[in-house]
């Protein structure tokens, strides 16, 4: 038992306790703005925990998607609704507490049969996992086993996920895609007059950073075969750069740089690329999404296939994130929520 393992176990439990404290605070606080911020911390702690539990790819995704994108979206929703929650009836709270206690006891009882945490002889580690860990290097030829499994062994599954994201983005466009606010020409004029005078610090810094963020997104996209990364993560990072641009320069400027038809085309192209890769392998007399035939050698074919598929996922996720952000930000603020409310919003 060496110091590394002890450190990692202690960090594991401490992080879980942090999450529990945050969760209880989320349940108790009624100011929704604070709740959303705490749920951001909760996701971030979750991501830290994934790193401690060796799931670097998952941590990557959770940090970018869970902590970043969903916090921004929730704040966007708060801007359109109200940041205050009504008090709940105590009878309902008691009923809920009773239900939760019983379910919790049942879960703990069920867990008594489980193998201990980190047990290498647990059944979960003895079915397909050894095959992935031992043979994927010969079959796929990529160091990152998670990418191999994601894009090749379980390629059907991932294609389904890409389509879910596509559908969700389409659903958001249908529900709230048509913004209600149109700017008058005089407003546009003040925009261009003021554009250089305001937010000097943010403008300069974001102009400096955005190219590097995009570059980093590309690195994550193409380096996903060798280290943590891949299409899901890269798509969100790429989207985050555009969200930053939209936050600082306004939605109009963002839409001028990246019109909505472009994101919609990219959204569809991504899933098309994924499914198209499968169709190409079918044309070449193999099964759907069997990449072995895409190049002269099987591992070479796997490389090409995984790169294409990951790129398709990246495109879809990027377009979905930007589309969803623009849908929320473009909706006019409902009149229930004025700036003056916010000064007192922090007092619980």
């Amino acid at each position: 038992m060496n110091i590394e393992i002890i450190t990692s176990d202690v960090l594991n439990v401490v992080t879980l306790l942090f999450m529990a404290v945050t969760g209880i605070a989320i349940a108790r606080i009624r100011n929704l703005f604070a709740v959303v911020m705490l749920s951001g911390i909760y996701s971030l702690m979750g991501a830290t925990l994934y790193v401690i539990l060796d799931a670097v790819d998952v941590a990557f995704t959770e940090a970018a998607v869970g902590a970043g994108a969903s916090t921004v979206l929730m704040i966007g929703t708060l801007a359109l609704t109200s940041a205050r929650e009504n008090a709940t009836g105590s009878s309902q709270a008691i009923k809920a507490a009773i239900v939760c206690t019983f379910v919790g006891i049942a879960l703990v009882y069920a867990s008594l049969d489980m193998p201990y945490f980190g047990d290498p002889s647990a059944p979960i580690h003895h079915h397909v996992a050894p095959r992935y860990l031992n043979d994927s290097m010969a079959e796929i030829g990529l160091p990152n086993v998670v990418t191999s499994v994601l894009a090749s062994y379980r390629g059907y599954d991932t294609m389904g996920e890409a389509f879910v994201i596509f559908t969700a983005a389409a659903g958001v466009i249908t529900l709230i895609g048509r913004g209600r606010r149109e700017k008058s020409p005089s407003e546009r004029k003040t925009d261009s007059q003021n554009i250089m005078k305001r937010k000097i610090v943010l403008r300069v810094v974001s102009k400096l950073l955005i190219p590097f963020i995009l570059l980093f997104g590309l690195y994550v996209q193409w380096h996903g075969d060798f280290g943590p990364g891949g299409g899901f993560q890269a798509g969100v990072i790429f989207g985050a750069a555009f969200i930053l641009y939209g936050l600082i320069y306004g939605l109009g400027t963002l839409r001028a740089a990246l019109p909505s038809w472009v994101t919609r085309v990219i959204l569809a192209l991504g899933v098309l690329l994924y499914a198209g890769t499968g169709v190409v392998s079918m044309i070449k007399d193999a099964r759907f999404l069997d990449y072995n035939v895409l190049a002269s050698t099987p591992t070479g074919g796997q490389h090409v296939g995984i790169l294409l598929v990951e790129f398709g996922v990246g495109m879809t996720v990027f377009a979905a994130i930007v589309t969803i952000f623009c849908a929320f930000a473009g909706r006019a603020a409902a009149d229930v929520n004025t700036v003056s409310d916010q000064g007192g919003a922090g007092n619980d």
Partner: protein
Amino acid sequence: MMFAVAAAGVVVTMIFAMARALMGPNVYNRILAVNVFGTLSVMLIAIYGFVDGRPEFLDLSIVYALINFIGTIAVTKYVTFSDMGHGDDGDPAGDI
């Protein structure tokens, strides 16, 4: 050992930041605490890479730092305007 000490220090500081995030008293204090918490997470991830003996996963820290920044800007913008798609329409209090 060195890394364990560093991780312990960062975790203790996280407790302080968490306390401030829970105490408030207003929105700005919370945002500040969450921002600090994010920075501390960046540190914890970097240190944990060394604890684990595989420090090549530092890409994660970059993402954390990035998300932390964008999150803070988004939240500040929401507090200032109650609206995220806001451009520059001459509101004197709008300069963040």
